[in-house]
């Protein structure tokens, strides 16, 4: 498995964070999709529409409820497929090094 390196070794005290490249594309997709969701949040096409969905939910509220569900699914998928495990590994590997204090990126 190819691995890339990120982080720095300031003063030689901090080992690098190893990023698993199999996680790179899921992460890129997550952030691209988050950008799309950012744009979709601005639902100006409903801003002056008081229509009720199912007879009781204002359409703007229904849209943002659905949006919220999509955002929840997005982060659920992000946790499953793009979780930064290397950061967990980095943190766990250095638990015994609590005496070391250095610059961390």
């Amino acid at each position, binding site marked *: 498995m190819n691995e890339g390196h990120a982080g720095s070794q300031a003063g030689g005290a901090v080992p690098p964070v190893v990023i698993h490249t199999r996680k790179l594309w899921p992460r890129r997709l997550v952030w691209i999709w*988050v950008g799309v*969701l*950012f744009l979709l*949040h601005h*639902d100006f096409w*409903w*801003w*002056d*529409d*008081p229509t*009720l969905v*199912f*007879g*009781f*939910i*204002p359409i*703007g*509220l229904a849209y*943002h*409820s659905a*949006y*919220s*569900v999509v*955002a*929840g699914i997005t*982060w*659920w998928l*992000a*946790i499953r497929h793009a*979780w*930064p495990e290397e*950061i*967990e590994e*980095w*943190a*766990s590997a*250095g*638990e015994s*090094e*609590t005496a*070391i*204090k250095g*610059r*961390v990126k």
Partner: protein
Amino acid sequence: MTTMLAAVSYTPLYVISVYMLALIGLGLASRQFSKGTSADYFLVSRNIGPFLLLMSIFGTTMTGFALVGSTGKSYTSGIGVYGLMASWSGLIHSAVFFVVGMKLWAVGKRYGYLTQCEYFRERFQSPALGHVLFPVLILLVIPYLLVGVISAGKFIQGSTAGMFPELFPLLRPDGSPTPLHGSVPVWAGSLVVCLIVLFYVFFGGLRGAIWANTMQTLVFMVTGVIAFYLISQKLGGLAEAGRMVSESEFAKPRLAREGMLGQPDSAVGRHVSASVPALAYRAQCEELSPQPDRTPDLHHDCLVAVYFDRHLGGRALWRTILHPPQRGARAGDQGAGRVGVSDGPGRRRGAGRHHVEPRLSVHVPGHHVHQRRGDARVRPEPLQ
């Protein structure tokens, strides 16, 4: 006044009393599980399970600002508040957690940092920075804490109206009672709440706080669903409630967001900045758990459910027809209170980027009324 007193039900007072006694009981019970060490008192021996962790973090996020303030804001400004507070939170809070939160947790775990001051002091190799940051962070937290205390006091005040007319009279100059006549004043309610929190934290340590948070989170989520059902039934069902809102002069503009919200452009910045103290709390909570919290999506789901319930049924939109504001009262006075939120300038399409609508300031005894010029939204409307 006699008629008003005869109609007063003391049930809310009993419910609030039982609730507070339960919190005291939790504090005492959690003390029985103490191992008698400082690590157990402050960090629950770093062994909190995922359910308690989620409930604790979520319950801490849902302060008076979210439960009382945002509900009042939806009452006055309509459904746009959901987009401002809930769906933005769902996207931005989790994103900030991924970008900043994980790294903050990792650095804290690796180097044993427990506070933000420790991190910044070491990061910049500057003890002076730590000394400066400490009071700044404390000062920034105080308003957030006060919002919770004030909203609790306001909630108790509204719930106990008319119960203690001799002890806490609140009369207009002409001698007629105000709507809050005989209620427990905000300062007294806030003081009682502070003492109870102090009690269960002092006796139970962080375990007591987490147990209390979990109980309170479950209570407000379950009662939110019950309130949603009861209010819709009182209005004749969901469809009937929708019809009444559509036909209500006060409520109808609140079915859409145009012109009802002020300065939404800064929402992203607010959420990012609001995420930072929440992250610090999460990072500290995660010190309690052997693994980092992987529940930002569950946290978001809980948040969305609560906001949806509060903004549509709990106390906001449907309440606009159950309790439309009367002339001589602020739009939020009969709603859920107005803690930590402000109407801000109105904004209308084609009327300039930040068009500040002219307002009339009207002083009547016991009230300070802001009314927009020519705005019919504060017109009294009888319940059909």
